[in-house]
C-alpha cells in the first residue's frame, strides 16, 4: 500500500492559485449504457474512458489515456450491442476492445461484470499473456504495483494450464545507461514505443521480429553512421540508427505495465509496498512538474511523475525523475561552520548565529570604504525563502542590494521583469500553449531549457499542427521534433531578428512568422538567455505589442519566477512594486512594520561583486548558488575573497562555503515545505517529505535576524504565508518597459567566431551529481560550427576544435552544423565544457577558434570528481 501525505495549500494573493479548470462543454454528446448504467459523454469518448467515469474497471495494458489507442493487447474486450440501420439493437459478432471503441448513441456495453462472453475473453487473453511471462514477480521491481500482477489476480484464472516451454531471453538489455529492458517480461503492449514516438519524439526502440519472438528491440550498431547528439554513456541505437538519447526515457519505465523496463538506478532497490510516497514538485526547472517522492526509512529511493493535467500531465523529464541524490551527497552540510584561523570549524547554531550577526552588524557599521551588506539568494529558492531574503535585505540590512540572478543578466532584463513579469501571474499558462496557433521561442531551447515545456509544445504540434518558431543560431533536434521553423540569428542579433518580424518584411521567413504571430492566441516565449543579448527583451516586448501575441518569460531555474514575485531584485519589491515608487515603498513598509524602506535602487549581482572586488562592500549573505554559474566566475572568486565577511546558507559544501566566514546549513527541498512558482506564475506548494533537523532558508534568516535584533517574523511557512496574504498584489504603477536599442554586432576577425551557448538539460550541474546512470544519458558535448567555419579553422567534422579566450580554452569534437558562419556553439556547463568558468565569456562574446593539437578520443573524459562518464 502506498501512503501519501496531503499537499499543503500555499496560494496567496501575491501568487494566487490557478482557478480550477472548467471542463469544456462538449459540442455534442452521446448517451449509451455500460452494464445497464446509462451515461452521457462527449462525442468521441472511448468506451473504456466512459467506464472509468462510472467506476467500472475494465482490465487493460496497451491503453494509456495520453497515447493514441492501438487495441493491441486485447485485454479490455467487452460485449457490445449497437442499434443497426433498422434501429434494432444487435450484438456485434465479436467482443470489442473498449480502448479503441468510440461510444455511439444507444450502444449497450456489457463488461466482464455482466457478460460471460466478455469475462471469458478477458480470462483467455490474460492466460495467453501469462504463458510466456516469467515468474519473476518476487524479484521484479514492478511486483506489488504491477498491472499484470494485479489484473491477473482480478481477471485471470487461478491456475495455469500451460505446461509447455516458455520463451526466454538473456536479460536485461541496456537500452541506455539508465534504462534496462527485460524482454521476456515484456507483454508487447507498445506503450514505451508509442510514448517515444508520440510524446517524446525519440523513437529509441521499436518492435522487431514477429510472432511470439516479437520483441522490443535494439538495432544493429552500424545501421547508419551517425554523428551528433550521442549520449555520453553506452547506449543502443534508435530506429534511425542514432544512439538512444532521450530526456524523457524514464517515463517508459513508469508506464510499462510490467517490469520489462526498469531503471538502473532503482533496479532491485526496494519493494513498492515498502515505500512511502509524498507528492512533491520537481526542483530542477521552472515547469513545476508534479512528482511523487518514494522514500523508505528516511531515504528517497525514486521519484515518479505525478499526475497534474494542468502542468506536466503524467510525464516528467529524466532529470526530474533521477536527479535527487544531490540532496544526500557526501558533502552535505550538517552543522553550522565558523571560520577560525582560516579553517571552518563546526559550531553550535547559537554560536554560528552570534558570529554571523556580529560580522554582519560590523560590516553594516563599518565606516571605511568597505561597508554595507548585499544579499545573493541564488535562483533555486522557494517563494517563501526568496521572500525572506527580500525582506531580510530591506528591513534587517537596510539595503536594496539583493539579486537572485546567478547567471548572465542585465539592467534591461530587470526592467523587463519588473514591467512584464512581476505581479502578472498566470497570464500565459500551459493550457494557453496547448491552444496557441503559433509559439515563438526566443533565446529558449524548449527541450534543453524547458523539459516538459517541450513535451507540451510537441503535443500541440501533433494534435493541432501548432506552428513553432525559434530565434536561434541553428535548428536543434528538439526544434526539428517540434516541426519548428528556424529564424536564424547569430548571438547578439536576436533583437534585430525580433524587430524584423513585421508583416510585409522582404524576408518571407520573417513576414510569415510575423503573420503567424498575429493569429489570436499566439504566444512569444522568451528565455533567460535573452538577457545577454542587448535590446532583445525590449524587442520582444515590441513584438508582442505589434502582433498582439501573449508574452511569457521562461527561466531555467525553479526559483527564478518566485524570486521575481518576492522582489529579490535591486529595483523591485515583492509583487512587482517598484523600489523607485514611494507609494509602493510606503505600502510595503506598512505591512513590514518598519518606518521606511531604502529608497535607493540597489546593485545587481555583477555590480555587487564588482564593488566587493574593489573593496567597497562590507559583507555578503549568499544563498544556494555556484560561482561557476555566474557571468564571470573568476571575478566572483576574487570578490568573495576580497569581501571582509561572507555568510553562506547552503545545502552542500561549495565554492562559496569554502570562502565563507560563517556557513549555515539549510534544508534541501525534500526536507522542507515550500512553494516553487512556475514560469507561468503558478504556485506549486510541496510538503516536507522527510523528517529533518535542517531548516529552510527563511527559518535560518529569521534566526539570523533575531540575532541581529531585527525580528523578521518568518519563522514558519505559515507565518510567511500569513504575511504574503496580508501583503497581496500591487495595483500601482509598474516599472516602465525597457527600450534598449539593439547593440551593433561585434566585428569578428579571421580565426574568431561569436560564441553561442546554452545549457543541456542533463549536464554537469550540481543538482545532478551522484547519479552516474543519468549522467550516461547526457548528450556528449560537441562544438558546433558551420562547414565554412570548420574549414577556416582547419578542422574536419569530428575533429577537435579549441575555443579560446584570454581566460582559457575548451577543446571539443566538432559537429558541423547548418548554422551561420563565424558562430561557434558550446554547451554551457557540460563535462569538459564549462563555458563561463573556462572562457570567462558568454553568448555573444568573440572567441578564437583553432584546430586542437591532439584529437579528443572518445569525446569525454572523467572529471576530477569522477562524476563524468567516459565514453
Amino acid at each position, binding site marked *: 500500500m502506498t501512503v501519501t501525505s496531503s499537499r499543503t495549500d500555499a496560494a496567496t494573493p501575491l501568487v494566487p492559485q490557478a482557478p480550477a479548470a472548467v471542463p469544456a462543454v462538449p459540442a455534442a454528446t452521446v448517451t449509451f449504457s455500460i452494464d445497464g448504467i446509462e451515461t452521457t459523454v462527449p462525442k468521441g469518448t472511448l468506451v473504456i474512458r466512459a467506464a472509468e467515469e462510472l467506476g467500472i474497471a475494465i482490465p487493460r495494458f496497451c491503453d494509456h489515456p495520453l497515447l493514441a*489507442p*492501438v*487495441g*493491441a*493487447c*486485447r*485485454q479490455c*474486450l467487452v460485449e457490445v450491442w449497437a442499434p443497426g440501420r433498422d434501429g434494432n439493437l444487435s450484438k456485434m*459478432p*465479436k*467482443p470489442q476492445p473498449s480502448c*479503441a471503441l468510440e461510444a455511439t448513441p444507444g450502444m449497450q456495453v456489457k463488461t466482464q461484470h455482466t457478460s460471460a462472453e466478455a469475462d*471469458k*475473453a478477458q*480470462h*483467455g*487473453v490474460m*492466460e*495467453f*499473456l501469462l*504463458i*510466456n511471462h516469467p515468474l519473476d514477480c518476487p524479484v521484479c521491481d514492478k511486483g506489488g504495483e504491477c498491472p499484470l500482477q494485479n489484473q491477473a489476480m482480478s481477471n485471470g484464472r487461478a491456475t495455469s*494450464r*500451460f*505446461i*509447455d*516451454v*516458455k*520463451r526466454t531471453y538473456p536479460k536485461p538489455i541496456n537500452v541506455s545507461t539508465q534504462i534496462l529492458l527485460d524482454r521476456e517480461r515484456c*507483454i*508487447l503492449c507498445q506503450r514505451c514505443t508509442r510514448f517515444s514516438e508520440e510524446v517524446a519524439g525519440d523513437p529509441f526502440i*521499436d*518492435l522487431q*521480429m*514477429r*510472432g*511470439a*519472438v*516479437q520483441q522490443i528491440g535494439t538495432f544493429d550498431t552500424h545501421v547508419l553512421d551517425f554523428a551528433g547528439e550521442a549520449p555520453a554513456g553506452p547506449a543502443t541505437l534508435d530506429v534511425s540508427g542514432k544512439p538512444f538519447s532521450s530526456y524523457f526515457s524514464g517515463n517508459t519505465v513508469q508506464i510499462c505495465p510490467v517490469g520489462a523496463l526498469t531503471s538502473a538506478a532503482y533496479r532491485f532497490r526496494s519493494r513498492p509496498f515498502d515505500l512511502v510516497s509524498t507528492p512533491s514538485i520537481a526542483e530542477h526547472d521552472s515547469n513545476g512538474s508534479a512528482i511523487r517522492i518514494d522514500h523508505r526509512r528516511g531515504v528517497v529511493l525514486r521519484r515518479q511523475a505525478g499526475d497534474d493535467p494542468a502542468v506536466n500531465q503524467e510525464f516528467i523529464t529524466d532529470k526530474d525523475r533521477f536527479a535527487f541524490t544531490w540532496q544526500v551527497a557526501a558533502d552535505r552540510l550538517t552543522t553550522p561552520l565558523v571560520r577560525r584561523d582560516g579553517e571552518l570549524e563546526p559550531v553550535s547554531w547559537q554560536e554560528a548565529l552570534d558570529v554571523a550577526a556580529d560580522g554582519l552588524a560590523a560590516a553594516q557599521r563599518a565606516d571605511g570604504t568597505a561597508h554595507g551588506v548585499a544579499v545573493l539568494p541564488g535562483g533555486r529558492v522557494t517563494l517563501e525563502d526568496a521572500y525572506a531574503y527580500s525582506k531580510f535585505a530591506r528591513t534587517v540590512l537596510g539595503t536594496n542590494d539583493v539579486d537572485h540572478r546567478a547567471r548572465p543578466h542585465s539592467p534591461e532584463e530587470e526592467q523587463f521583469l519588473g514591467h512584464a513579469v512581476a505581479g502578472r501571474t498566470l497570464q500565459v499558462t500551459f493550457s494557453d500553449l496547448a491552444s496557441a496557433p503559433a509559439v515563438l521561442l526566443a533565446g529558449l531551447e524548449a527541450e534543453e531549457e524547458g523539459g516538459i515545456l517541450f513535451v507540451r509544445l510537441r503535443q500541440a504540434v501533433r494534435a493541432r499542427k501548432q506552428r513553432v518558431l525559434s530565434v536561434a543560431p541553428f535548428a536543434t533536434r528538439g526544434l526539428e521534433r517540434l516541426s519548428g521553423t528556424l529564424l536564424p540569428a547569430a548571438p547578439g542579433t536576436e533583437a534585430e531578428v525580433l524587430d524584423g518580424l513585421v508583416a510585409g518584411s522582404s524576408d518571407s521567413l520573417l513576414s510569415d512568422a510575423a503573420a503567424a504571430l498575429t493569429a489570436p492566441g499566439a504566444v512569444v516565449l522568451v528565455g533567460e538567455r535573452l538577457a545577454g543579448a542587448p535590446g532583445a527583451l525590449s524587442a520582444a516586448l515590441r513584438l508582442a505589442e505589434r502582433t498582439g501575441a501573449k508574452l511569457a518569460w521562461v527561466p531555467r531555474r525553479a526559483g527564478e519566477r518566485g524570486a521575481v514575485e518576492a522582489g529579490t531584485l535591486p529595483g523591485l519589491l515583492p509583487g512587482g512594486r517598484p523600489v523607485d515608487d514611494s507609494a509602493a515603498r510606503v505600502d510595503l513598509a506598512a505591512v513590514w512594520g518598519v518606518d521606511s524602506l531604502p529608497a535607493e535602487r540597489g546593485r545587481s549581482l555583477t555590480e555587487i561583486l564588482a564593488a566587493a572586488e574593489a573593496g567597497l562592500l562590507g559583507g555578503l549573505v549568499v544563498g544556494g548558488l555556484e560561482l561557476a554559474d555566474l557571468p564571470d566566475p573568476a571575478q566572483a572568486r576574487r570578490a568573495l575573497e576580497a569581501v571582509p565577511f561572507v555568510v553562506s546558507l547552503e545545502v552542500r559544501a561549495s565554492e562559496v562555503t569554502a570562502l565563507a566566514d560563517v556557513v549555515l546549513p539549510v534544508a534541501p527541498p525534500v526536507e522542507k515545505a515550500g512553494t516553487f512558482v512556475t514560469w507561468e506564475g503558478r504556485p506549486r506548494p510541496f510538503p516536507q517529505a522527510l523528517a529533518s533537523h535542517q531548516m529552510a532558508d527563511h527559518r535560518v534568516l529569521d534566526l539570523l535576524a533575531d540575532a541581529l535584533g531585527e525580528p523578521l517574523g518568518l519563522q514558519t511557512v505559515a507565518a510567511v504565508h500569513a504575511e504574503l496574504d496580508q501583503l497581496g498584489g500591487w495595483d500601482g504603477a509598474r516599472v516602465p518597459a525597457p527600450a534598449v536599442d539593439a547593440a551593433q554586432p561585434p566585428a569578428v576577425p579571421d580565426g574568431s567566431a561569436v560564441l553561442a551557448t546554452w545549457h543541456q538539460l542533463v549536464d554537469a550541474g550540481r543538482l545532478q551529481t551522484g547519479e552516474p546512470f543519468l549522467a550516461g544519458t547526457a548528450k556528449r558535448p560537441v562544438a558546433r560550427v558551420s562547414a565554412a567555419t570548420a574549414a577556416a579553422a582547419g578542422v574536419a567534422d569530428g575533429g577537435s576544435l579549441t575555443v579560446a579566450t584570454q581566460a582559457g580554452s575548451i577543446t571539443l569534437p566538432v559537429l558541423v552544423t547548418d548554422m551561420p558562419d563565424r558562430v561557434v556553439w558550446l554547451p554551457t556547463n557540460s563535462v569538459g565544457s564549462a563555458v563561463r568558468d573556462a572562457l570567462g565569456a558568454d553568448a555573444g562574446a568573440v572567441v578564437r577558434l583553432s584546430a586542437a593539437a591532439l584529437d579528443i578520443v572518445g569525446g569525454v573524459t572523467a572529471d576530477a570528481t569522477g562524476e563524468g562518464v567516459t565514453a
Partner: protein
Amino acid sequence: MTTLTPVLSAHWDADKSWTMATYEKNGGYKGLRAALAMEPSAVIAAVKDSGLRGRGGAGFPTGMKWSFLPAPDGGPRYLVVNADESEPGTCKDIPLMLASPQELIEGIAITSYAIGCHHAFVYVRGEVLHVARRLHQAVAEAYAKGYLGKNVMGTGFDLEVTVHSGAGAYICGEETALLDSLEGLRGQPRLKPPFPAVAGLYARPTVVNNVETIASVPGILRGGASWFTAMGTERSTGHGLFSLSGHVQRPGQYEAPLGITLRELLDLAGGVREGHQLKFWTPGGSSTPIFTAEHLDVPLDYESVGKAGSMLGTRALQIFDETTSVVRAVTRWTAFYKHESCGKCTPCREGTYWLLQVLQRLEAGQGAEGDIELLLDQCDNILGRAFCALGDGATSPITSAVKYFREEFEAGMHTPADVLFPPERSSLFAYTPRPRKAQLAGVH
C-alpha cells in the same frame, strides 16, 4: 455437369503468353478502350451489375467497395493491388501474373479510371522473384504502348503504376498491414476505422483489391455484366480459378464458374491419387475449416460453402487422401501461423505459440489428458478476439479437424502420428522421412 470457363486462363497455353503481343492478339485492352469511352461512374455501375465479388477470400462486392470512396476532393486516391499471395495452398495469383500479367494491368487501368486514381500500386510477394520481374516487364511494355503513363491512349487520363515487392510476411496480405508495409512501416494491421476507403495509403482514399478481382474486370468490360452473371450462381457470379493441389491426379488451375463442386473438379482433374480415397480437403486455403468426403457435392460458391460450415476463401483446394494424418497436417499449418503471426495482438501471438506446442505433443503421441479440450478452448479464446483475421484463420483448421477427426487427436495421447500414418505412404515421390526431433516444444 459444369464445364470449365477459361477467361483469365484462356491463353495461358499460347506461345509466350505473357507478352503484350500475345495479349493484344487475343483481345487485350479492348476492355480498357470500352471503359475509357464510358463515364467512370458507368464503369463502376457495370462492375456492380456484374456482381463481381472480391477474389481474395472475403468475397466483398467489388463495385460496392469502389463506391465507398468519398467524393473527390482534389487530392490523390489510390488503387493498391494485393499480390502478396501467401496462404498455404493458395496458388492462383502467382500463375496468373506469370502467364498473363497484362490481364492484371488492364484491370488496373480500368479500375483506376473508374475510381479516379492516378497512381496504382501492386504489392507483390517478394519471394516470387520471377513474378515480380515479369510484372515489371509487363508494366514497362504497357507504358511503351501508352496504356499507362501520361495521357493514356490519348484520353487525357494519367496513370502511374508502381510494382513493389514485399519482404516476406504473410501478414502483409492483410490489407491495412499491406498499406503500412507499402508506406515503409512495419507490416502490422491498422486499427479500423478509418477504413482504407477513407484513409488508406498515405491517409488517402484507397481501394485494395486482390489480383484475380482486378484481372476479372477487363472481361466484364469486354463481355458486359450479363455475360459475367451468366456464369456462376445468383449471388456468386462469374468465373474463378480453382487451385487443386495435393493427392490429386492432375493438380493445377481449373477456371470454372463459381458453384462448381469438388466432385466435378476432381472428375476434371482425374480424381484422387490412384488407389486412394479422399479423406479431407480445404475449400479455400488452410485458414478455412476443412471439409471431408461428405462435402464433395457442396457447390463452391460463397453462400453454399458458408452454409456448410466453411469459407470459399481463395478456392485453394488442398486434397488429402486417407494416408494423411490430420493431426500432422494441422500441426504443420499451425506452425505456419505461429511463424507468421505478426505479434501485434496477444491472442494470435501467444495463442499460436501455445497451440503449436500442444499439437506437437499430440503429433508425437505424448498428448496429455484434456489436451483436446484445451486446444478447443484456446481456439475459442483466439477466434474473434484477435486484432485481424489471421488469428481467426489459425483456429479454423484445428476446430474443424477436431470436429471431423477427433479420434485421431485422441490417438495422440498414446501413439505418434507417424506410426498411425507413416509419412512415406502419403508421399507422391520417393521420400525418406526425417527422424522425429527429440525436442518437442518451445523450439523456434
